[in-house]
């Protein structure tokens, strides 16, 4: 287990290197520099600025310097938010995004799993068809459609909840974005849970459990639940990645000051260092969370031995 963890961490290094390298060079081949824009700078001032940011050095040097700074947690300065470094922006925004993402994934599991189980137990009944149609709808209507609709209906027309803003993470402000972010994952998880529950319920060891004289609820809770959840656990990695990606638009729509919004604004404003910083940060986050999910899986399934 420990050696597997170390190996996975070792595999994460080239992955992150690729992300960083691609981002770095993409940024450098981008047309224009950080200082052209609002107004033309005198050549000598521009030269001074370039020297200050080490942009006059040869590219390999710059690359090494960037890597070195990264190791110290320094993503460089933001070009547009002049008073902030990218690191500062990420440190500011991350807790907000984290809170949003955490509640979204929790909600997705809390609703998706029971829905899937109910549909599986009432297989081919009207409840099953209803749940699965709703789930399909959740997949078909993307979050960037649901989010403005939610804001329109509950924020503007009914005025029950604020249509945007963060307000220090008050639950009223959080509710709509969390719902919008989790709907798609609820749908995926419900579908997956239903399929795997149906498969497990027809497996031989469930027949054994019934032959022991266990009641149906004992059969489901003790024997079917955990194995049926395994595919959902392995889906958690992609689910988390999906929620992180989704938070980019959701933060934008609801005006939430997380990293997602910085990312979009950075992208639209050509704030290359900010975009790159967030990409690298997200990359590291996704790699790390995937590792945690895989380790969680091995804890749940004794048949997995990560000794290779």
């Amino acid at each position, binding site marked *: 287990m420990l050696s597997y963890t170390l190996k996975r961490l070792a595999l994460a290094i080239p992955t992150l290197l690729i992300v960083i390298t691609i981002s770095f060079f993409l940024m450098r081949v981008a047309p224009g520099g950080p200082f052209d824009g609002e107004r033309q700078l005198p050549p000598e001032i521009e030269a001074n600025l370039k020297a200050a940011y080490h942009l006059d050095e040869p590219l390999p040097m710059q690359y090494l310097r960037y890597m070195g700074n990264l190791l110290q947690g320094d993503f460089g300065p933001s070009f547009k938010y002049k008073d902030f470094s990218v690191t500062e922006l990420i440190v500011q925004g991350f807790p907000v995004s984290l809170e949003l993402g955490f509640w979204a994934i929790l909600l997705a599991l809390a609703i998706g799993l029971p829905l899937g189980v109910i549909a599986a137990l009432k297989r081919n009944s009207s409840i099953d068809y209803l749940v699965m149609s709703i789930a399909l709808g959740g997949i078909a209507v993307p979050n960037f459609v649901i989010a403005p609709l939610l804001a329109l209906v509950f924020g503007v027309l009914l005025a029950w909840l604020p249509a945007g803003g963060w307000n220090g993470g008050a639950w009223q402000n959080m509710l709509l974005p969390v719902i919008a972010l989790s709907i798609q994952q609820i749908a995926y998880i419900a579908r997956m849970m239903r399929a795997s529950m149906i498969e497990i319920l027809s497996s031989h060891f469930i027949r054994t459990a019934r032959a022991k004289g266990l009641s149906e609820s004992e059969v489901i809770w003790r024997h079917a639940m955990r194995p049926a959840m395994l595919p959902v656990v392995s889906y958690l990695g992609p689910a988390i990645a999906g929620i992180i990606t989704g938070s980019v638009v959701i933060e934008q729509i609801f005006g939430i000051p997380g990293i997602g919004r910085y990312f979009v604004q950075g992208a639209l404003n050509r704030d290359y260092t900010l975009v790159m910083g967030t990409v690298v940060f997200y990359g590291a986050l996704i790699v790390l969370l995937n590792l945690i999910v895989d380790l969680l899986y091995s804890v749940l*399934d004794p048949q997995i031995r990560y000794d290779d």
Partner: protein
Amino acid sequence: MSKALLEIDNLCVDFQVPSGTVSAVRGVSFTIHEGETLALVGESGSGKSVTSTATMRLLPELAKVTGAIRFDGEDLLKVTPKRMRRIRGNDISMIFQEPMTSLNPLHRIGRQIAEVLGKHRGLKGSAARSKVIELLNQVGIPEPERRIDSYPHELSGGQRQRVMIAIALACEPKLLIADEPTTALDVTVQAQILELLKDLQQRYGMAILFITHDLTLVKHFADRVCVMRYGEVVETGETQALFTSPQHDYTKMLIDAEPQGTKAMGDANAPVLLEARDVHVRFALKKRLFGKSEYFEAVRGIDLTVRRGQTIGIVGESGSGKSTFGRALLRLLDSSGDITFEQVDITQLDKNGMRPLRSKMQVVFQDPFGSLSPRLTVGEIISEGLKVHHPEFTRRDRDARVAEALAEVSLDPAMRNRYPHEFSGGQRQRIAIARALVLKPEFLLLDEPTSALDRSVQVTVIELLRNLQRKYDLTYLFISHDLSVVRALADTVLVMKEGQVVERGIAAEIFAAPKEPYTRALMKAAFLTSPVSAA
């Protein structure tokens, strides 16, 4: 005679399927007395498993069950679900055919056994644990104190079946239903499990409903036999009486379905067709991109000489390397050592060099469902080899040859436009034989060609192979785990274990007087104590 324990009276089971109703069991009646063993015998589709599952009321809800199942005077079809749960695992318990998948993979075996004890006996904690250890001991699991904390995947198939038996016997039931409990196991393991069941039956005085397709087992295991076909009981009787004077034609046919006859020794001076020297095959267990790979040696140095017209039988349990060796001989797998076919050294030939020889050496595999390409018609499957080896043939030539080959294996040539999934197991195996035969080969590798078939179908396939051999002077290499089939077909036998030959010789001699202990164990397990020594 002791009193009746289970009386099944006019039991009918219908399944509602989209295309209508399928009657799986139609008016079955039989009785099991306390402490006796009743064997329910039938081929696939006879309804024997449905009957036993209905007794436990474990059929899916879409099954319609009528009649009566009286257990200790109580009609199980009428009791409440709650009462039924008190009976399951307590008064009646069941073991299944699939030891590999019948245990919950995520729970330790100790917990799975203790669960029944907790449910029906209220045993918890250390009391339950010591009872579980006692049970594991009784079913012959070594080191029960350690094994109690194992997960199912850490045990072999035989051990898992023992754990299933421990679960079934934990509450000392009055009736044990054993649904093909040994079918998925190797013969030697099968014998051990049956012995264990007999032992435990005597100790606990329980009745056993033993469901099987294998009449050989029945003869040695059951007090009475009940033969089923098409969901109906054909004949019931005392085991001895039933075997000596079967009343019904179907029973007679089943008993005769034991492969009969032997093959006379071939001409000892016939020319050598295939010769193998010191054949080794190894598989990579872990292929590493860098560094040393790990290997497993499946075949460890085997010599073999095959003369024209001979049938060599290779016998062994699963994992003995017999199939691997057969594939290596046909150069379907890489191997080391020398193999010559018709005096040509084929070890050095590449794919193109092998191609002309391929029409002379053909193969028939075990799995009638996996060996035919599902998206091609039977005609296309059979003619594929003709396209490779006789490119000069016109479409019409090929069609004629295909029809001829189908007729040769007793299939209607009109069937050549159909797809494999429309045929039964036995028919598919005939198609596979036709595919090999159409090339007019000299040497045929038969890799467990009858193992997936019902006994009665098996006999007809064996008969077909015999006739073809006589007609075309074919040479067979027959691989099987089933000693009775090998005895019927082979003139020379090799017994394999762990990649090596433990014993070889003339079939009749080996079956009459096996020299090696392993061969003897195999035969004892298959109840093939020869008629000579029995007398």
